[in-house]
């Protein structure tokens, strides 16, 4: 069942979505059994920004039918904190490490990409483009031109595979994917969360500290399937499909729609070992069917 992804050998096609699994915290909770049964074929770390971030004020979560809305705000230790505290631990994971980065300008992203380009512990980089460019006010991944200029700016800085994590909150997601491909991206991943909101039933005001958040879970599975299908038809580079995957069956659907790899996110919240189960179910399904 092993797969080649942009030259990286993976034991199976199931990985995690960025920001949905903290291997360091999970090791505190579960100990070394986490390494013995590591649920993903590659580990995608939470978004790293140049400067440390505390994240959004709580409350940060709201359960919806078949899923949840989160407004976490990308808390992280910043580049130097990540290099000093997190990378040494993550380098010892039994699977390849993919680092997700985000900047508020092309120069910031370039600085992050250049810093990780020279780290042998890092197998690939994923660009989180669901963020406004402070210079233009445009969400980088919502606009094909912005996305192309970003990928163009950082492409030459690294030989490592560059994955662009597409936002579903865009008018024409396949056009953004094509722009990323033409500018030199090696793969695209989708979907990120869909913008959503919940009101505090007691006050009628926004429930989430960040006012709006991102919807994930089974509730978004059909949307993910449609977007993965559209993007996979629009580009030649590999697509990592994710969104509401709870079983091998859901992963098979995404692969039939054109995904090369399948990402697990919210389901890991329900069961930390969900990736292991889904990879096993998917393996059986793939063995018994032609994708």
């Amino acid at each position, binding site marked *: 069942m092993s797969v080649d992804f942009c030259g990286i050998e993976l034991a199976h096609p199931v990985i995690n979505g960025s920001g949905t*699994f903290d291997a360091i915290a*999970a090791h505190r909770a579960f100990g070394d059994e986490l390494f013995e049964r590591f649920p993903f074929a590659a580990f995608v770390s939470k978004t790293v920004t140049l400067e440390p971030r505390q994240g959004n004020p709580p*409350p940060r979560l709201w359960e919806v039918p078949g899923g949840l809305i989160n407004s976490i705000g990308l808390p992280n230790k910043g580049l130097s904190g990540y290099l000093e505290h997190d990378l040494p631990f993550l380098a010892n994971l039994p699977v390849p490490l993919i680092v997700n980065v985000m900047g508020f300008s092309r120069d910031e992203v370039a600085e992050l990409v250049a810093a990780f380009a020279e780290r042998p512990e890092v197998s690939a980089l994923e660009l989180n483009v669901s963020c406004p460019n402070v210079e233009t006010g445009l969400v980088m991944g919502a606009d094909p031109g912005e996305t192309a200029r970003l990928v163009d700016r950082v492409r030459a800085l690294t030989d490592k595979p560059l994955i662009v994590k597409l936002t579903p909150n865009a008018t024409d997601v396949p056009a953004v994917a094509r722009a990323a491909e033409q500018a030199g991206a090696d793969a695209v991943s989708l979907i990120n969360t869909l913008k959503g909101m919940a009101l505090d039933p007691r006050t009628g005001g926004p429930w989430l500290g960040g006012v709006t958040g991102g919807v994930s879970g089974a509730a978004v599975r059909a949307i993910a399937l449609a977007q993965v299908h559209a993007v996979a038809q629009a580009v030649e580079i590999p697509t990592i499909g994710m969104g509401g995957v709870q079983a091998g069956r859901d992963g098979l659907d995404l692969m039939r729609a054109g995904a090369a790899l399948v990402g697990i996110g919210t389901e890991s919240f329900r069961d930390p070992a969900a990736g292991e189960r889904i990879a096993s179910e998917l393996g059986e399904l793939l063995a018994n069917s032609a994708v």
Partner: protein
Amino acid sequence: MTRTRAPFGRRPAPVTAREEHGAYVVIRCHDRFGPSPQPGQFYMLAAAERWGGGDGERPFLPRAFSVLRVAVGELQFLIEDVGPGSRRLSELGPGDDLALVGPLGNGFAPPRDDRVPILVGGGVGIAPLAIWQDELRAGGTESPGLLGFRDERHAKGAALLTHASVATDDGSVGHHGLVTELLADELDGRADDVEVYACGPPLMLEAVRAICTDWSVPAQLALESGMACGFGACFGCVVPTVDGYVRLCVDGPVLDAHKLQSALVAGAGH
């Protein structure tokens, strides 16, 4: 104190008994493969059947519950029906399975400097104090419980602890007023000799924190915050502390009161 670590992944735990205590339900389950938890640790609970699974209904996420009590191979949880998750859990009985992950988080630490523990609980938050009282007794320490409830129906939960003094909002049982008034009486003249352990609704915990800060009494508070995963993945359960935001699931749920400027956790008790 090193935490007891959880087996990796969710596991089924057959429900062996369901007991009603007024407004509360105690669910006992058989946990063959799990370690014995530390008092104050918690589990993420879901019903094995009819819980999300893509059918588009709530509940979808597991719910965090402190362990109430343990016996050999058995875990007990205290449930109050306050929403779709706790309602589904409170309906479970023999023949049903829980799906659980745990034990998780940091539990209570022993009292500092041989101080005498005082346990302060409110509502369903009395749960971790029962297992803590059991463990303290096993170590030769009797610890009184000061328990606050809404009314007589909820106050039946007091039977889950021994040596409990009860306060009720409506005066139907015990002291007519707040459990923190009982605490203030208890602390009078003994502030140098006691340590407070508390779990309950945000307003109660904040009152406990304020009293203990005023009296310079060390206090360990078991907090609650909306939680999706319980093992540090979602970053949803953060609470503000003097050190910035911390994830209650991996850095709590028990926090030292002096780490908090307020125990009024946004979104808790909802």
